């Protein structure tokens, strides 16, 4: 008898997501998919809005990585208006972005991913949360809170607000950084560097004690920004490598339409980007931490560079298990880079913007940035300063296909003869969690993840219901 298993909700991308697993008559996995079940329509309702309002409207796409949308949007505005922002403004934007990486990566690593490993993947779901860690190792939990707080404080001081910042405007920044704030942040960031180093050590131990292929081991192409060959999160060229590590393309992100297409599937509200020259689905690729380390030849800051070199022989990194380690290396880079920026006297320069005039004729602009979850693209067309069309490719979308495949791989490895335990379901969730799709952060943020497993016969009749709530 055929069975269908639904894990709902498993993990999310700014909304609800679920997994369906179909079992054949022997109880083996025949088919498994990841569905994103939400759609908001920013690409339509931004039409008619004023160009300069876009950096504050598009932050509302994501409350976890609003800085990425804020900056990708501001960059698209600058591009459309043909302005080169002052160097100090560029540094302030990058500093805000580093704050975002510290907040977002530490949120994911400590609040979401670590509980599975620290408490055990098949431990009591009630304790498998940051609250469990708080009971087991309160000092570690407090350090995690501290590290994320430092990230949010940087965003607050530079961006005006920790969530949905406002200071990046076409032409630069609306305000400079004060000397006092620079002094305070520079002290805080020293602590962030040591806490990030601690995170790398924890991730290193997790990696060493885990079976590499446990959470899926796909062989895919990868894409990410690089600058002079180094890891780059704010600006640079987009590099794409194949599954063996050979360079496929390195291009100016403004030409993304030539290289990247998006495929639509009936069963997901999230589209599936692919490399156009190879077509769908062969042209699928991945983004975010392991991909960024794969496309980079080095990291420009010393501590992160040392860690990067320690895994350079394993490149291209493919196993999902590497995501957590790679994410903490980026966390360390973000903290070190923030320190560099705060040590540069230009960071307090008052020359943070240039006056920009409206563009009354038609315009087109593209802004690309590495969000914590991967490459983020904002593309606008305007008529008389109003948005005529907008195209946005969000970071997690690039990994949509890989998440879908990982779900299938892990389900096939662990589900046999129709036997499913809560621990196995969590393994499937852990494979998805490696990619850090947006909602999973919040899902595990303050409590446990609810989960329902509905095993149904092919005719829809309920056979078994497993609940974890």
């Amino acid at each position, binding site marked *: 008898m055929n069975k269908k298993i639904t894990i709902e909700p498993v993990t999310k991308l700014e909304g609800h997501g679920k997994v369906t697993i179909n079992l054949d008559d022997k109880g083996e996995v025949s088919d498994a998919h990841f569905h994103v079940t939400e759609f908001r329509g920013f690409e339509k309702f931004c039409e008619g809005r004023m160009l300069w309002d876009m950096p504050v409207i598009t932050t509302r796409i994501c409350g976890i990585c609003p800085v990425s949308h804020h900056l990708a949007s501001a960059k698209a505005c600058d591009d459309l208006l043909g302005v080169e922002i002052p160097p100090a403004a560029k540094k302030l934007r990058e500093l805000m972005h580093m704050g975002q990486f510290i907040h977002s990566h530490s949120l994911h690593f400590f609040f979401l991913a670590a509980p599975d490993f620290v408490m055990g993947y098949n431990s009591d779901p009630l304790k498998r949360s940051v609250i469990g860690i708080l009971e087991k190792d309160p000092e570690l939990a407090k350090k995690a809170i501290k590290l994320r707080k430092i990230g949010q404080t940087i965003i607050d001081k530079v961006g005006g607000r920790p969530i949905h910042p406002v200071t990046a405007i076409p032409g630069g920044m609306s305000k400079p950084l004060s000397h006092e704030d620079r002094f305070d942040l520079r002290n805080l960031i020293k602590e962030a560097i040591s806490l990030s180093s601690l995170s790398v050590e924890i991730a290193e131990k997790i990696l060493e004690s885990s079976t590499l292929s446990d959470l899926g081991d796909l062989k895919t192409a990868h894409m990410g920004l690089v600058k002079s060959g180094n890891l780059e999160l704010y600006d640079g060229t987009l590099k794409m490598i194949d599954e063996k590590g050979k360079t496929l393309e390195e291009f100016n992100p403004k030409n993304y339409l030539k290289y990247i297409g998006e495929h639509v599937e009936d069963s997901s509200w999230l589209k599936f980007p692919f490399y156009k020259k190879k077509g769908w689905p062969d042209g699928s690729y991945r983004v975010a931490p392991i991909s960024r380390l794969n496309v980079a030849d080095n990291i420009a800051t010393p501590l992160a560079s040392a860690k990067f070199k320690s895994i350079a022989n394993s490149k291209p990194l493919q196993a999902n298990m590497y995501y957590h380690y790679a994410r903490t290396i980026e966390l360390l880079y973000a903290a070190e880079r923030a320190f560099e920026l705060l040590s540069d006297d230009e960071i307090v320069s008052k020359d943070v913007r240039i006056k920009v005039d*409206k563009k009354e004729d038609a315009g087109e602009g593209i802004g690309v940035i590495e969000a914590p979850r991967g490459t983020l693209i904002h593309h606008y067309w305007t008529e008389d300063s109003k948005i005529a069309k907008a195209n946005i490719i969000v970071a997690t979308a690039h990994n949509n296909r890989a998440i879908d495949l990982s779900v299938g791989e892990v389900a096939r490895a662990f589900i046999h003869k129709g036997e499913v335990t809560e621990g196995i379901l969590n393994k499937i969730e852990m494979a998805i969690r490696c990619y850090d799709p947006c909602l999973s952060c919040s899902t595990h943020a303050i409590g446990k993840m609810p989960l329902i497993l509905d095993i149904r016969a092919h005719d829809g009749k309920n056979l078994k219901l497993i609940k974890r709530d």
Partner: protein
Amino acid sequence: MKKIKVATGILQGCFGCHIAILDLHEELLDILSSIEIIRSPINDIKDVPENDLGILDGCVSNTDNEKVAKRFRERSKKIVAFGTCACFGGVPGLRNLFKLQDVLNRGYIETESTVGGKIPSSDEIPDLLPHVKSLEQVIDVDYRLPGCPPTPYRIKEFLTSILNGKEPVLPKKNLCHECTRQHKEMYIPKREFISDSVHSIMELEHIDDKLCFLEQGVLCMGPATREGCDSRCLKGNTPCRGCMGPTDDAMEQGAKIINALASILPAGGLMFLEDIVGVGYRYALPSSIIPYLKEGK
């Protein structure tokens, strides 16, 4: 003391409201000693546990959101519309300016990067509602805490009131009341009613960080927006865009700003700003009384 049982859930939103709870940082640990979070966040799971306080953020945009909202109402003694999307519909509510079919066509067929697109349709994904709604348009709510997102300070104050058995009180006045920027010429009658003011701070030679934005010729939503956000955008040297939603006595945030601009003489011209709907109603379109586009018309 017996801990109160709290369930939190997300409808359609950006998760910023839940991140704002986390932004209490160490203070969250104190709060956790008085409340027990028995579910967070809730999604479209059928079984919402019985709870004392249901905290729901996000607007209602698809059939799943509707189901979750109704289930929460059944199982929660009190419900909080948490954040501006839940209170008024929020930014996703701008979708109501368009027909759903046009929104879908843009997303899945017309977008420049889409290759061979189609509108997704399957039993595995919920249907979108023709219009985005605020939480209150779907279920009765007991409390409202607006903000995009609410500040951690307001969240703490709100939860502390509930824990002490008191009715939470929101600040009532408009943002100008709390804003510290100076006024110089605001109420001086001038003939230049329709000013040739700039539309964006990017056009200003110098963005004055002490002077009222309306006096600098830039539209600021302060007069039509509830205070209580700590004037964060103003302190960031950018004008208010209304994310706290309207005050209690102004049902229509967009109409309120037009009214305010008409009476503040030098700023009057700003009411002819090109995108008054996208600014005036950015956060509260679903809960406004202006008729939105009906399907099929």
